[in-house]
Each structure stands twice: as structure tokens, then as C-alpha cells.
């Protein structure tokens, strides 16, 4: 009996130890926590005056206001975290000092986690550092380093301000951030008012990179104004969000800007864009200024459901990671003057920046029509009442060939096609890369080979899409349990599908492939594509989704995702072609063809007008096609937006439809029937073919939105396109531009 008791206790102890051992983060990569806070000392602080100077800029330190001020030697204008006209102390008629709003006088906002409220709290440097005398500046190479010491909070954040030949930079030195470990830093926003304009100012606007790009209305609203933010490159897919929200376009470029009469500032996030949100604050009569600025998340988090009574109310609370992302968030500010001081100048500047960074070469766009062909979708079927999952064939390989053949006869020019969902799970989440092969249900090897030969013989660019991000089955060399990305708590990042129409959470639990295995996934895609003989392959969601993997060093808070994807594409395109779908700029820049580029913004309340910023940046360098025109609410507008920048129109097509698909949660299927719209596709393509042909090699030189609603684009080869989005005919330069139509001509 005693022995039995001993054995039982031993077994229980072993089991307990095994279970408890699971509580450790044994998969976690080496992490760097924030340093322990101690009061700042030993800094050799500099006095007011010039800290650095080059041919273009003078960097000054104002020790009284604790401000970094940059002077543009070309114009003599000042740029600082406080708007230039608010730097100087002003007095009212009674001689009383007019104080700026503390936000306007704060070079940085720090966000820290409050253990009391279980929420993230914003702290302004003016309130919590400046007033307590906690700002220290020291000289460094090319600039100065300012340490903001939030004494009451026991948080210190160093920021380096440096000057280059054509720009100046603000960089947060993440590894030197210190806190007391209780109230810990979760994020930081730097220089929120460098890109700002005075409310109601004429000939001024803010540029916000939402979707295609948009200009914000900066007129006064009320005391509070309007605020908001959107994640750059989309939300972190590792964090499961439970709330239904409205549909927003994605920010695909880490840029922002402002125009103030004859000067403009373009901000480019050169490091840490994947961690950042782009914030807007407009129309506040208290602030008097409207601004766009980036806010960097330094620490990853999980969302945990806190019941009522635990937190202030029932809600999802953020539980943060111990480690911080050590990439130093950095923003480069370009000052634009004269004719370049508008969004066209900003686009050209960013284009130049990308060209230099990625060594981009000019590429001609010879595609008249871009097509996405969907293979299959999983549906539920029954056999003698026994349910099973069936692959509904939306388009077989032979049908795909027939559709391409029909289009080829009608379209004047080249066709680029992307085959999506031809793997064994169709467009639904299954194995990584859909198993890296075309399912036999869609056609045998012979028919695939015939399709590929047909494409080659008829000058059709045929890509095959591999979904290498989400998966729910082991296979293709990737294990469901071992090869998925992990959350900050060490668990596999397992998310649940949800249908925003029915508001039902699905039962499909999927995981995200570990970031360290993306290279291997790419290699497999490349091999498969090459074996089949496709023109290249498309990386689908990997071109537009960023995610964290806390099991991989440096991949926390989505860290280094743009670089990783960019490097992988660069490596693959040496031997083959790569296509992106609705891609972020880092992926688009490296790709051979970019499908689904945004032609409109999210229609924010604060948005004044959409601009084709994204198209302007990449036109002439990367062949691009629009989003699916047949899934849009206003196809006429989409066609006009294609014409505006010489973008190839794109359609999503399937051959077979059935009313069993009506409750499918794949949006856009309803309007994808090829038989119903083949004429529309060819008509649209042919209508745009001349614009595309004439602008194939050109870049966008200038773009204007006139008050009467006309959009005028001038290309580098002196080709003009004027689009009329209004409901009435408008005359321009002796030409009548019909309502909802466009006109084009060439000037010598």
C-alpha cells in the first residue's frame, strides 16, 4: 500500500512537472527587455545654438524651449516638432502669454501600460518631461541626441535628430528606453506636429497614405477635432481581433506629408514601419493645427478577454510581451519647395527614395488585361445524408483555357492571369501553399500542360498563386503543431475565421506559418511553379499581410517583415517572376507584376479627395493592375481611376456558379461569372488599351484635381489623360470631356 502511494505521488509529481514546464516560454527567441529606469545623470548637455550644419540644413537646439529646430537654407523656413509659427512665444492684447496646447509643444508622446487601469495611457513630453526639467540634449554625429525623461512616470526615451544632404531624421533609440517595469513603455510617437498645417489655412493640406492616398480636410471642426489611426501595412495577423469593424483600405506605404503654401514636408518611415500606426488629428480648435504622424508600437501583445468587474468593463485587454522591438523607429523628413511642394513632389521624392533603396529599374507595362481566375471553393455536400467537404469547381483547367482563349480573341494586347485556389482546398485555408500542386479535380497533368503551352504560345503571362500564410492542415513539409508562428505568451498563433456578414465566428481554426519557414515556403513555391512551367508565381496574402512571430528572433511586433518579404522576392525573381496581390510597397517594389493596387481610399470622414499616390510612385517601374472591377460598387469610377494613371484593369472570374454558393463567405463571388461579363471585360480592356499602350514606359510627371472635378495626369512622355468623375460634361483645354469618361492626347 505504501509503495502504491509512493508510486501514485511520484506519477502525480511527474505529470505536474510536465504540465508546469509548459508554462515556460521555451520557444521564445532571445529577447531584450527595456532597461531599468534610473534618473538621468552624466549627460554633457549642450546649450542653445547650432548643433550641426550642412549645405542644405542647419540643426539648432533651443535649450529654453527644449526644441530641435531645423532651418532650410534654401528658403530660410524653420521645421520643428512644434509648428514654426507656434515656436515663438506670443502675447494677447492684455500682455498675457498665449500658451500653445501641450500636445503642440510635445516633441514626443509616450504610451505606457498602466497596471491600475489595465489600459495604455498617453503621456506628453511637454507635461511629464519638459515641465519637470527632464529633457537633456547632447551632441552626436550629424545631429543631437535628446533624452526625454518622464520623471513622474520613471520612463526615459532617447531620440536622435540628424541631418542628411536632402532630409533630416528623427530616430528613437529603442534599446536605450528605460522604465520602472511596472508602468512600462508600449509605444512612442515622434514629432507629431512636424507634418502639420494650421486649421483652415488656404493652399494647404495633409497627405495621408490610406489606400491609393488621400488629402485630408483640415478645416476647423470643434474643440476636440477628429482623430484616428490606421496600422501601416495592416493589422498584425497574429493578434486575433474579435470586433466587427467597418472595411478600410490598407496603408500600403509608410509615408505621410503636409503642404503649407509653397513648402511641403514628406515623412518617410525608414525603419519600424511595420510597427507603426499612422495617426491623424484634424480640425481641433484647441490645437489649432491639423497633423499626421506615426505612432510606433514597441511591445507586442495578446488580446485577452477580461470579464466585467476585472477591468472597468467587459472588454478585450492587451497583455503585453516582456520584450521590446529593438529596431530603432526612424522617420526621414524631406523638405520640398516651389513646384515640388505638393503631393506630386512627394510621390516623386518617395519614388526616388525607393529607386535608390531597391535599385529599381524602369519596366514597361504591356498588359492590357489582368485576370484572377478562381479554381475551387469548399462546400458541404451529403452522401446518403452523411456530410462531407466537397471541392466545388468554380473553374477547371480546361475551362480556364477556354476563358483565356475567349478573352484573347477580344482583347487588344497582352493578358496577365493569376490562378487562385487550384490546390486541394480551393480558396479555403488548407495546407501551406495549397499543397503546392494543382488538384486533380481541376484537371490532369495533360490539361495543365496544354493550358501552359496555350499561354506561352499566345503571349499570356500565367501566374499561379500560393497562399503561404494561413494553414490548418499539416502537409507539404509543414507541421501544424510545430511550424506555426507563436504569440507573446508562447502559444501558437491560432485564429478563427469569421464571417462579417453573418457575424458568426467560423469553426475553422487556422495558424500562421512561422516566419522562419517563409524562405522554405517560397522555395517550394518556386520549384512547383517551375515544374509546371508557369510564367511565375503569386504570393497572395504574403504580399499584403504582416504578422509577428514571437518564436523568431526579431520578429516580434511584426519586426522586419517588410525586409524579409522584400529579400525573399528579390532572391526568387533572379530566376523567375513574382506577382503580388494588393501588395504593400515593399513587396510591390520588388515584384514583376502587382495585381490589385488600390484606386481609392477608405473614405474617411476627414478625407477631402482621393489621389493616386500609390500609382504615381510605381508607374513606370512596376506593371500594375487595379482591384477587381467587377467586385466594386462603381465600375465606371474604377475604369476612370485606371485611366488616370495608366493602370491595367483587373477582373475576377469563375466559370461555374451555383446557388449552393450563395451563402459562401467569399465576397466577390457573386459577380464573378465569366459568361455574364465576358463582353464587359473586353470592352473595358479595349477602352483603356490606348492609354495603357501610350503610358507603358512612362512615369507620372504631374497630377491635378481641379475644382470642377476633372483629374489631369501628365506623363513623362508628354501624354495627357483627363478624367471626368462628375455627372456633367466639362470642357478642358478645348476638349469636351464627357461625364464619367476620359480623354487623352499627346503633346510634342
Amino acid at each position: 500500500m505504501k509503495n502504491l502511494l509512493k508510486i501514485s505521488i511520484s506519477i502525480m509529481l511527474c505529470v505536474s512537472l510536465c504540465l508546469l514546464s509548459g508554462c515556460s516560454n521555451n520557444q521564445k527567441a532571445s529577447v531584450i527587455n527595456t532597461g531599468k529606469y534610473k534618473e538621468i545623470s552624466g549627460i554633457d548637455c549642450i546649450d542653445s545654438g547650432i548643433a550641426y550644419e550642412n549645405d542644405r540644413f542647419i540643426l539648432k537646439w533651443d535649450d529654453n524651449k527644449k526644441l530641435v529646430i531645423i532651418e532650410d537654407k534654401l528658403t530660410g523656413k524653420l521645421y520643428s516638432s512644434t509648428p514654426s509659427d507656434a515656436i515663438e512665444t506670443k502675447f494677447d492684447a492684455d500682455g498675457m502669454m498665449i500658451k500653445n496646447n501641450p500636445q503642440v509643444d510635445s516633441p514626443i508622446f509616450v504610451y505606457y501600460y498602466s497596471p491600475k487601469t489595465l489600459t495604455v495611457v498617453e503621456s506628453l513630453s511637454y507635461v511629464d518631461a519638459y515641465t519637470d526639467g527632464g529633457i537633456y540634449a547632447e551632441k552626436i554625429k550629424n545631429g543631437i541626441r535628446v533624452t526625454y525623461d518622464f520623471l513622474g512616470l520613471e520612463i526615459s526615451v532617447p531620440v536622435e535628430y540628424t541631418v542628411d544632404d536632402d532630409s533630416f531624421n528623427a530616430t528613437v533609440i529603442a534599446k536605450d528606453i528605460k522604465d520602472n517595469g511596472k508602468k512600462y513603455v508600449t509605444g512612442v510617437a515622434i514629432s507629431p506636429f512636424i507634418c502639420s498645417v494650421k486649421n483652415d489655412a488656404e493652399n494647404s493640406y495633409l497627405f495621408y497614405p490610406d489606400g491609393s492616398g488621400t488629402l485630408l480636410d483640415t478645416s476647423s471642426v470643434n474643440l476636440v477635432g477628429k482623430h484616428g489611426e490606421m496600422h501601416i501595412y495592416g493589422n498584425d495577423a497574429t493578434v486575433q481581433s474579435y470586433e466587427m469593424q467597418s472595411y478600410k483600405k490598407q496603408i500600403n506605404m509608410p509615408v505621410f506629408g503636409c503642404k503649407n503654401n509653397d513648402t511641403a514636408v514628406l515623412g518617410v518611415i525608414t525603419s519600424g514601419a511595420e510597427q507603426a500606426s499612422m495617426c491623424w488629428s484634424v480640425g481641433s480648435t484647441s490645437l489649432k493645427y491639423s497633423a499626421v504622424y506615426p505612432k510606433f508600437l514597441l511591445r507586442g501583445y495578446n488580446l485577452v478577454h477580461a470579464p466585467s468587474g476585472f477591468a472597468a468593463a467587459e472588454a478585450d485587454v492587451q497583455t503585453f510581451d516582456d520584450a521590446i522591438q529593438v529596431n530603432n523607429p526612424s522617420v526621414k523628413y524631406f523638405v520640398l519647395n516651389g513646384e515640388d511642394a505638393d503631393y506630386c513632389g512627394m510621390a516623386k521624392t518617395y519614388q526616388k527614395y525607393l529607386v535608390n533603396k531597391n535599385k529599381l529599374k524602369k519596366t514597361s507595362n504591356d498588359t492590357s488585361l489582368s485576370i484572377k481566375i478562381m479554381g475551387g471553393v469548399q462546400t458541404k455536400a451529403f452522401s446518403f445524408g452523411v456530410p462531407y467537404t466537397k471541392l466545388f469547381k468554380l473553374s477547371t483547367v480546361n475551362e480556364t483555357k477556354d476563358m483565356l482563349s475567349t478573352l484573347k480573341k477580344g482583347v487588344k494586347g497582352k493578358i496577365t492571369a493569376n490562378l487562385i485556389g487550384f490546390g486541394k482546398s480551393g480558396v479555403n485555408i488548407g495546407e501551406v501553399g495549397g499543397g503546392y500542386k494543382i488538384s486533380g479535380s481541376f484537371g490532369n497533368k495533360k490539361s495543365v500542360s496544354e493550358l501552359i503551352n496555350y499561354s506561352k504560345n499566345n503571349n499570356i503571362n500565367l501566374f499561379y498563386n500560393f497562399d503561404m500564410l494561413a494553414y490548418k492542415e499539416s502537409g507539404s513539409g509543414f507541421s501544424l503543431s510545430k511550424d506555426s508562428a507563436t504569440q507573446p505568451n508562447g502559444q501558437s498563433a491560432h485564429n478563427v475565421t469569421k464571417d462579417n456578414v453573418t457575424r458568426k465566428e467560423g469553426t475553422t481554426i487556422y495558424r500562421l506559418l512561422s516566419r522562419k519557414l517563409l524562405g522554405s515556403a517560397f522555395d517550394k513555391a518556386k520549384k512547383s511553379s517551375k515544374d509546371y512551367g508557369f510564367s511565375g508565381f503569386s504570393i497572395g496574402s504574403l504580399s499584403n499581410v504582416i504578422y509577428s512571430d514571437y518564436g523568431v528572433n526579431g520578429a516580434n511586433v511584426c519586426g522586419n517583415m517588410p525586409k524579409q518579404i522584400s529579400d525573399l522576392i528579390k532572391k526568387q525573381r533572379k530566376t523567375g517572376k513574382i506577382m503580388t496581390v494588393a501588395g504593400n510597397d515593399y513587396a510591390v517594389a520588388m515584384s514583376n507584376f502587382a495585381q490589385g493596387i488600390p484606386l481609392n481610399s477608405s473614405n474617411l470622414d476627414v478625407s477631402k479627395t482621393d489621389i493616386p499616390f500609390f500609382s504615381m510612385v510605381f508607374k513606370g517601374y512596376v506593371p500594375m493592375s487595379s482591384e477587381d472591377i467587377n467586385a466594386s460598387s462603381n465600375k465606371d469610377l474604377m475604369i476612370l481611376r485606371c485611366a488616370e494613371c495608366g493602370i491595367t484593369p483587373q477582373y475576377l472570374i469563375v466559370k461555374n456558379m451555383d446557388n449552393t454558393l450563395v451563402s459562401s463567405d467569399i465576397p466577390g463571388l457573386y459577380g464573378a461569372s465569366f459568361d455574364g461579363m465576358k463582353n464587359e471585360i473586353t470592352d473595358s480592356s479595349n477602352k483603356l488599351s490606348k492609354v495603357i499602350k501610350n503610358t507603358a514606359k512612362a512615369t507620372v510627371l504631374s497630377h491635378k484635381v481641379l475644382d470642377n472635378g476633372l483629374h489631369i495626369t501628365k506623363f513623362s512622355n508628354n501624354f495627357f489623360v483627363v478624367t471626368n468623375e462628375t455627372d456633367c460634361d466639362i470642357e478642358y483645354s478645348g476638349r469636351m470631356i464627357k461625364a464619367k469618361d476620359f480623354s487623352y492626347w499627346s503633346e510634342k
Partner: protein
Amino acid sequence: MKRIIICFLSITLLLSSLSLSVSANEIGDGNTNSNEVPYRSYSYWVDYNTNEKTAVYSKPMYEAVKTVEISKKYDITNSKIVDISTNDDYVFLLDAGASKIVILNKNYEIVSVLENFSYNGSPVDFAGARGIFVRDNTIYVADTEHRRVLLMDTKGVIGNQLLLPKSNLIPTNFVYKPVKVAVDSKGYTYIVSDGSYYGAILYSPEYEFLGFFGANKVKTTAVGAIKNLWKKLTSNDTKRAADELSLPYTFTDIVIDNRDFVFTATGKSGKDLIQQGQISKINPGGMDILNKSDKNFADVNVGTLNRVAQIQDLSCITVDKDGFIYALDTTYGRIFWYDGECNNISVFAGSLGDGNQKGTFSLPSGIAVFGTDVLVVDAQKNSLTVFGMTKFGASVRKADKLTVNGDYKKSFPLWKSISRLDGNCQLAYRGLAKAYLEKEDYSSAMKYAKYGVDRETYAEAFKVVREQKLEKNFALIFIGVILIVALIVLVPLYLRKKQIVLIKNQKIKVALGGIAHPVESFRLVKEKGQGSVIIAAVLLVLLYVFTVLKDTVGGFAFTVFDTNNYNSFFVLLSTIGLVLLWTVSNWLVCTLFGGIGKIKEIFIITCYCTIPILISTVGYLALSHILVPDEGAFLSVFQTVCILYSAFMLIIGMMRIHDYEFGKFVWTTLLTVVVMIIIVFLIFLVFLLSQQVFGWIETIYIETIYR
């Protein structure tokens, strides 16, 4: 054989219990997001599967074309736009914060702001007002806080006010707080008072109080009636004082269409997340002629905000000149567009969230139509959002109007094009089915009716097709019927004459003979041991298979097959499971009460007794492909007769094998049913306990593999 049957049953059981799910996701590559609008449009299919409504994505029919920020346009600090009304030329916005009325022209530009009102020389302020209505250049303002309705011209000159009328019809405790007002073409004024469950207050064109109009009704259910009776029997003064009265819910909005029908919205009534009967259409007699008190006009699923489920609130309504209804769910900011026959055309706008995009809202508070534009005001954003109809929406509207008016011919090309552009448009399929029916292309009508799940049109077309086939093949069918009858009559005679035995196996003979001679057959089973477990099992399996087939591949006009929720496991339980349960329970009971039947005999007899049900199932399966629902009564009678005959056979069988008299049979049967319930209860108990144990093991497993 036994092994094969067991294997088959086990596999079926296993497979049918699998819960399969198929889902795509925003993150998958199937996602397309080229909408220029910040919401996904959808519509509801009716009768798809067994669901009353099924949400499906649809091509956008409305898009937010303009947002007018009122407080930006004129200098008002405490502006709060709460309601909207339109006439042919202008849009009128009620600013209840600043006590002003903002008038916009057709281009949604502010043309004037009415302010500084006075009445009889005294300044008038209507801060806190909640409703505005305009007819024939008269503006009606429901001045809630000041308990009056103000009547003014379009210049803002107040000419009259409607206060609480003095009448015996008004209860003494009535609180007059007008929230909405509407006036019909003859000048009758309808006022909705906050908290009034008597209906709208009705004034004559001369502003004489006429009474209350069209109150909602309290829903009565059988359970409610029993509860009320119980209360009456057991109530005392203390209990009565603590009782909550069941009162009808008050209207939240009121509008009047071109033909003077009054439409009301009831909004959020009670704490149920899913509401019903939110919209009424009341005739001049005060009767709800829509009669949709059980219909949920809003979404079938609820969303959450900060993880808290939100109650839908269809509290604002408007009707256009063609009778199309637009109802606004103020919780979700969604607009539900219905035609005059309450067919859902589209759901668009809004969503839960921050509401910082054009077409989404923070606090939507009023809706109106202006031509084909739908206008929504937001009391928090102080904005007017204009939803313009897309080309596609205009086509659907036109086609639906033609269909509702019965002009199927003109609607045909429109529906054809709509179905090509949006494969999810049920109205298009239904419209096409009706058009084809009118064109006498019955096979196409059947095809599209099947697509659009329109059983009525399908049955009409099918009836004609069936008649045509009968006419065409009358000679063949007639000869066939004569032959079959002749065979039925002559073959037995011939066989008897020639003494030919078709079925030589005595056990099969006994099984089949049970239908015609149950007493004799069951005697043979009991006394001669001529029953067969294998035949019984085969019969049972056939019953299961044909029941599944009846459910899944029965005639379209009769069968509603729910692909989402159908599970043959439940059919298995209700056929094979039920027979086994009966067998075991009956054996347990009868063993204790002197029954001499063995478990094997009980099983055999019970299975033999299912033959009539099997015949009815096979018959139903076949006839459902031949008959139309009008003739469905025959099927019901046929099924009922078969079930009763099975019961009759079971009575005889049980009495025979247990050697019971009828009385003993009755009470042992009752006891058997009780035992069956107990066994089911125990199975559930074991199932629940094992589920918990497996759940615990699964949790440990998941925790282990996630780490």
C-alpha cells in the same frame, strides 16, 4: 452479414456525427476587397435551407456619395441634428441642440437656416425636439421637451401648436411627449408620443383630437396564457403590486406613403437581441395589413462591441413614392431596404466601430428619402450622409417594381442582366421564374424557381409541365397503367393457377405477410420461430436509408433540405436508434411483468411493423417528384394511414409475442415509454460527463501542443 451491417452502421454513425465546417476568411487569398464603400452590402435569401433568412453578399446597390457636416457649414457650437424630412425640393434638418431648422437644396447645399422663432409674440425654443415632418410647405416639429407640436411655414413663422388634447379618451396619467409627427394627404395629423402604448394621437385636418390610432398588440402565446391564468388563480395584492404589466411597445417612428397608409417602426422592444415585427403598415381603419408581427426585419445575427452583444434597434423608417421601405437599425447603423411586399432587396451602410468613414455612423438618428437618394442624419457627427443608388441598384429597383406590379415581361431583360452581375440575387431568380412562367417557358421557369427557392412558382410551372408530359405521352401512360393493373390482377391468378411460388423463403414470406396478415405472421414468428433478425435489420436499414433519401433528394416542391444543419445522425437516432431503444425498453419492462417475448422477437416484430412506414417513405419519395404542393394533402393522408397501420401492427405484434391482453399491453407500453425516457436521460448524463472528461483531456492536450 452481421459484421457488414455492424460495420456499415458504425461508419455511418461516425461519419454523420462529424461536424464539418467550411469557411474562408478575410486573410485567405479568396478575399477580394475592391469596394469603394466601407461596408459590405448583403441581402437576405428567404427559405434558403430551412432558415427563415440567410445573409448573402450582394453587389452594392447604394453607396455613400456625400457627407455634409452641418456644424462645419454654419457657425453653431451646440448643434445636434436629430431628424430629417424632405419634400419634393428641399431637405429639412432638425437641429435640436441649437433649436434651428436647416434647409438644404437638391445639391445638398444649405440654402437657409430657420432660427429665432416666436409664437404669439413670445420667443420659442424647441431644444430637445426629436421629430420633424414637412408637407405642403408646412413644417411640423415634435417639440418633445416642451410637450407640443409646432406648425410653421418654410420661413419659420409659427402658425399653430398642437398641445395635449382635452378628451375623455386621454387617460389621466398620460404623458404627452411628441417624438415623431406625420400628416397624410387629407390633412390628418398623427403624433407619436414617447412612452404611449395607446398608438399614435390622431388629429383631424381641423386639429380636433379624434382618438388613438393603430397601437401595437401584446403578443399572446400559449405559455403566456397559462401563466396569466395561473397568476389569476394564485395572485394576491402584494403579488399584483409586484407584477409587470404586459403592455404593447410604443412606436418609435411614423411615416405615411402616397396612398395614405401609415408605416410605423417599433424599434427595440424588450431585451431580446433579435427583435420581431418592427415594421407595421396600418390602414385607415387602424389595422396592420402587413401582418408581419413574427418577422424580424433586421439582421438574424448579432454583433458585439467590446465583446458585449448589441440589441438591434430598427427605430427609424421611411417610405418612397413607389412604396419601397427603408428602415434604419440605429444600433448597427445599417439600412434595410424592402419592397412593398417585404422582400429584402439590400442591406447597406454602417457597422459597429468608430464610425469615422463616409457611410458609417456614430449615432444615426433619422432617415428620409429624397428622390432615390437615401439620407441619414447622425446626431453625434452632426452630419447628413447621402446614399446614392448605384446603376446596379437602379436596375434592381426598376425590375422589382415591375415584378411587384405584375409586369413580368418588362422586368425580364432587367432581371436577366441583374442575375449576370450578381449571382446572389434571389429576387432576380424569382423574377425570372415568374417572367418565364408568363412566357410559358415552363422548364426555364422551373429552373429559375429552383435557383431562387420559389416553390410556389416552381409548382405552377411543374404542374403545366406534368400536364404537357401526360398529354404528350397519354397513350403510352394509359397502356402502361392498364398493363400494370392487369399484371397486378392477373399475375397472382396465374401464379395460383400454375402453383408457382415466387418467394420460396418462408422467413421472407412471413416478414412481408405481416402487412396483410399480421396476426398469423406474428404467430409464426413467436411459435414457429420463423422470424429473421437479418431481414428485420435490413428493413430497419432500408427505413433509415429511404428516410435520408426522402430528406435529401425528395421533390423540390416538397423538400426543404438544410445543407448547413442537416445531420443524418439524427435520422439514424430517430429510426434505428428508436427501434433499438424500444426493443430494449420493452424487453426490460415485459420481463418484469410476465411478458414471454424474447428480445430477439421484440426486435423482429418491431422491425416488421415498420414496413408500412417504409412503404410510405418510398411512396413519398417517388410521389414528391410527381405531385405539387396543392395535392400534398394526399401524401399526408397516405403517410398518416401508414403510420397508424404500423402502430396497429405493433399492438398486435406485442400482444402476440408477450401473450398480453390489450389492457396489459397498454400499461406495459406506457411503462416502456417511461423506461425509454430514463435510458435517454442516462445516456445524456453519461455523454455529458464523458464530454467534460474529454474536454479536460483536450484542454491539457491543446495546452501541451501550443507550447
